[in-house]
C-alpha cells in the first residue's frame, strides 16, 4: 500500500529543468556592477528579437548592481509577449565563479563535458535536446537519446545534429555564471567560437580569426556564417547590439536579436569543427 503511494508521487511531466524548450529565464548573475540575464528564446540558440529585460531592486528600476548583499528582481519578456520573472539574492559571501576553461569530448551520439571553475561551485546543465547525467560538481555526460526509464527502456536515439548546452555554475550564495558548450553529432561544418558551435557554409581550414556574414537560417543557432575569410590584424568587423567586441553568446542569451545581427559582417575567432 505504501509502495503504491510512492508510485503515485511520480512526476507526470516530460519536461524537466534541464530541458531548454519554451521561452525561459535560465540564469541571472551580477558580474561586478553588471546585471545579466540568460534567456532562452524557445526558438533555438538565438532570439529573432532580443527580449526586454527589466531589473528592479526594492521595487525601483535599476541598471547596475549595488554592492552585496542585495536582492534584485528581473522581468524578461519576449517580443511575442511571453514573460518570466526571477529573483537574484546575492549575499556577502557570494563570489562570482570564474570559468577558466571547459572540456568537450565527443563520443558516438554522446559527449562528456565539464567546466573548470575556481571555488566551491555546482554546475547545473541544460540542453536543447538529449539528456544529462551529472558526473561531478561541474561535469556531466550528455547523450543524444533521452535516458531510459521503466516506461521507455529503449528511448529514441535521436537524429544527428547540434545541441545547445548551458553550464550554469552557482556558488550557492548568489554568485553565478554560465558558459555555452554546444555539441554536435553530425559533421557540420561548424566554427567553434569558445563554447558555441556556429554553422558555416564552408568549413574553415584552421583555427584563427575570420570575417563572416551573419545570415539567418533554419538552424539551431538561427544563422549560418557565410563568406568567411581570414581576418587581418587590422580588421574589427561590425559591433552588434552595443557589444564590443562581438560576442557570439549574446545572440543565444538574448542580449542581441537576429533582427539586429542579420547581414552584419563580424569578426569571429574560432576553430574548425569537427
Amino acid at each position: 500500500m505504501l509502495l503504491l503511494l510512492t508510485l503515485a508521487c511520480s512526476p507526470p511531466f516530460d519536461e524537466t529543468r534541464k530541458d531548454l524548450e519554451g521561452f525561459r529565464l535560465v540564469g541571472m548573475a551580477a558580474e561586478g556592477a553588471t546585471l545579466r540575464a540568460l534567456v532562452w528564446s524557445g526558438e533555438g540558440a538565438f532570439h529573432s528579437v532580443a527580449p526586454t529585460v527589466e531589473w528592479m531592486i526594492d521595487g525601483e528600476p535599476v541598471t547596475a548592481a549595488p554592492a552585496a548583499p542585495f536582492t534584485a528582481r528581473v522581468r524578461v519578456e519576449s517580443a511575442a509577449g511571453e514573460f518570466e520573472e526571477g529573483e537574484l539574492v546575492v549575499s556577502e559571501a557570494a563570489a562570482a565563479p570564474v570559468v577558466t576553461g571547459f572540456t568537450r569530448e565527443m563520443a558516438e551520439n554522446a559527449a562528456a563535458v565539464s567546466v573548470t571553475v575556481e571555488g566551491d561551485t555546482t554546475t547545473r546543465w541544460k540542453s536543447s535536446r538529449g539528456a544529462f547525467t551529472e558526473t561531478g560538481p561541474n561535469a556531466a555526460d550528455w547523450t543524444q537519446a533521452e535516458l531510459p526509464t521503466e516506461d521507455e527502456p529503449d528511448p529514441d536515439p535521436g537524429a544527428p545534429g547540434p545541441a545547445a548546452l548551458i553550464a550554469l555554475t552557482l556558488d550557492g550564495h548568489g554568485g553565478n555564471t554560465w558558459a555555452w558548450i554546444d555539441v554536435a553529432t553530425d559533421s557540420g561544418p561548424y566554427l567553434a567560437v569558445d563554447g558555441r558551435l556556429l554553422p558555416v557554409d564552408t568549413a574553415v581550414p584552421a583555427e584563427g580569426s575570420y570575417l563572416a556574414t551573419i545570415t539567418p537560417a533554419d538552424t539551431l543557432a538561427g544563422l549560418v556564417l557565410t563568406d568567411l575569410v581570414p581576418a587581418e590584424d587590422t580588421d574589427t568587423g561590425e559591433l552588434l547590439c552595443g557589444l564590443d567586441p562581438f560576442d557570439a553568446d549574446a545572440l543565444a542569451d538574448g542580449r542581441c536579436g537576429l533582427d539586429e545581427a542579420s547581414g552584419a559582417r563580424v569578426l569571429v575567432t574560432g576553430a574548425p569543427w569537427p
Partner: protein
Amino acid sequence: MALIPLLALQALVSAAAAAPIEGRVFDEGTGLGVIGAEVVYGDTTVLTDKKGSFALDLPVGTPVTFRTPGFIEATFAVPAADDWRIRLQRDVGELEVVVEARRDDPVVSVTSLDRERVERTPGTFEDPVRLVQALPGVSITPEYSPKAGDVSIRGAAPGENRFLLDGIDLPYLFHFNGYSSVFHTRMLDELTLWPSTYGANWGGATGGIIETKSRWDRPDGVRGSVNLNLVMGGAELRVPIGDKVVLRASGRRSYLDAFSRDDEQYTVFPKFWDYFARAEYTPAEGRRWGVFAFGAGDAYTRYSGEPTELVGWEQETNPLLDYDQRYHVAGVVHRERFGRTVTDGVLAYVDSSVSGTLPTAAEATHERSVQLREDLVSAPNEVVSFAYGAEIEGSDTRISSQTEQAWPEVAREASMLARGLNVDVHTARLTAGAYVEGRIELGPVRIVPGLRGGYDTLTGTPTVDPRLLARWTIGPDTRLRVGAGQYSQYPTVVQVSPTIGDPTAGPAHAQQIAVGFDHAIAGRWEVGVDGWAKRMDGLVLTELDGSVRGGVTGTAWGAELTSRYRIRDRFFASAGFSFGHATRDGETFDYDQPWAGNLAASWTFHPTWNVGLRYRVAAGLPYTPVEDGLYLAASDTYTPVYGARNSARYAAYQKVDAHIEKTFHTRLVQVTAYAELWWVPPVSNVMYLAYRYDYDESAPVAGPGFIPLVGIRAER
C-alpha cells in the same frame, strides 16, 4: 445469570446417573446451527460441529454453559430427554456493525464508537479510529493525500482539537499518513467524539475533543490475540492474577521496511510501532488503580529532492532526510468512589519528540511534560449533581534548528529547515484549567450550566469560559438539545516562539452554539439533526511560506443529518449527510467541506460470515492555486507564486469500501480471516496537484484507486 440456583440444582443431581444425550445449538434469530460454539461443563469443553450439534454423557440436571462470540452466554441444565435443542440469542451489542451510535448521557451532540461495533465496518482495516472521518462534522480527506489522517472537526483545524487516551493528550493520533491509529485496537474500548458545545469538563481546544478509552475488562482467563496483515503485525495479551489484578499488554510494528528498501522515494521504508502496558488493580466495584506505559513511533528515511529527476552525481549528492517522531508515556490512573462522589484521575509523564535530520542540517522539537487531571462527580440527590475538576500540565520544550540554507523540499517534515531557520529555544510552561458544572434534572428537562477557567504562564493571560447546555426529552423516543458557550485554547510553544512563530499570539476563543434533535421510529430507525455555528478569534494560522500569524478570526456553521436503520441483529444500515462552511480571516478555511455524505451497510448472513459495504462522497477540499513560478537564481530553482488562499477546490471525493470476513472456531482459538478492498473512481481520485519544475503546468496526482488488503486475527 441464575448461577446460585444452578449450583444448588447441580448438588441435588450430583448423584444421578450419567446418560448420553445429543443436542444442537441454534441461532435464535436465523434458525441456523451455531458452528464451533463452546459447550462447557465442569472443566470440560466441547465444540459444536458444522451443524451445531454436540453429544454429551452427563447426568440429568447438570448445568452446561453454551458460549460463542456474538451470542449471549447461556447456562441450562441437562434435560431428561435425549434430544436437546439450545437457542442462543445474538448479543446485539457485539455483533451490531455500525458506523456510529449516539450516547445518551450528555446533552450535547456526541458520537461514540466502540471497538466491537466498528471492527467489521468496511474501510477501517480493523481500526475504529480510522472511522473518525466518517462521523458527522468531521471533514473527509482523501486517503494518502497530504491531508490524509488530518482530523478537522466542525471548522476547526487539526491542531485546534484534542486527542486523548485515558485523559492524556496524545502527541499524534495516526501512524504514517493515517494508516492506523497509534495504539492496538484491541486495547481500545471506546472512542467518543465531542464535536462542539461540550460541557465545561473539556477545555484547551477551540475545536472538538476525541476521547479514546482503553479496556478495563476482566478476562476469565489468559486471553490474547495475534493479528497480521500485509503491512503490520501485532499481538495483545490480558492476564488475570487473582480476583483483583489484571496485566494487559500489546505491541505492533510495521514490517514493510524489512522487505522494501531503497525505492524511488525511500531509502528506508516507513516503519512504525506502538505499545501499551498496564497493571490494573480493582479492589472493589467502582474503584480501580492502574500503572501504565504506552508509546508510539514513526520513522523513515527519504531523498530530500525528487529522485526521479536526478541522475548520476546529482542523485548521489541528493541528501537524505531522516524523519523520526515518537512519544512515550508513563503514569498512574485511578477511579475512586466516596459515597455519592466518584473521582477519576490520571498523572502522566509524557516524552515526545519529532526530528528531521539532513547530513548538514537538523531540526528537532523535544517536549517533556507532566500532565495531571482529576475529575469528580458528586450527586447529592436525584435532582442536582455537580462535576468539577482540574487539569495541570507542566512542560519543558526544546526547539532547535541548525542549517546554512533553506530546504523547501523537506517542508512536510521539517518546517524550520524548510524556512532556513536557525533557532535554539528552551521554554518552560505551566498551563492549568479548572471547571465546575451543575447538572439539574427538572422532569423531562436537563440543564447543565458550567464555568471553566484557565491560565498559562507563556501568554500570561487568564481565560474564563461560561457554558450552558440543556436537553428536553419530549417523549420516550424524542429529544431536543441546545448548547452554547465559549471555548479557549492557548497557543503551542512553537506558535509563540520568536523566529518560528508569532510571539504576540494569545489565547484563541470560540463562541459556539448548537441545536440538535433526535427521534427514533419503532425502535429501529433513528434520525438526528444537528445545527451548529461558531465565531472564532485569536486563532493561529500557518501561512503558505511556513510563517505563523496569530490574531486570526474565523467563522463556521453547518448542519448534520444522521439516520440509522436496523433489521434485527443481522442487517444494519446508516446514512449521514452534512453541509456547512468555514472561513479564516474571510478566506475559505483549509478543511472547508461544503457537503459530505456517508452510507454504510453490514449484513451477517451466517453466524460465521459477514459482509459490509460503505460509500463516502464529499466535496473536494480547497487548495491554493499556483499562478506562476518565480525563478530563484541562486539555486536555479523556482518558487511558486500563489493565488488567493484556498480559492480553488479539488474534485469531489468518492470511495467505496467492501469487507468480508469469515470466522473459524477451533478448540483453542477463534480465527478470523478478512479481506477488504477499496475503490476510488478515477474521476474522484485526486490527492494533490503536481507542478512542473517551473510551475507553468500542473497535473492531478491520483492516489491508489484499488487496494485489496487481507489479514488474519487469532484470539482466545
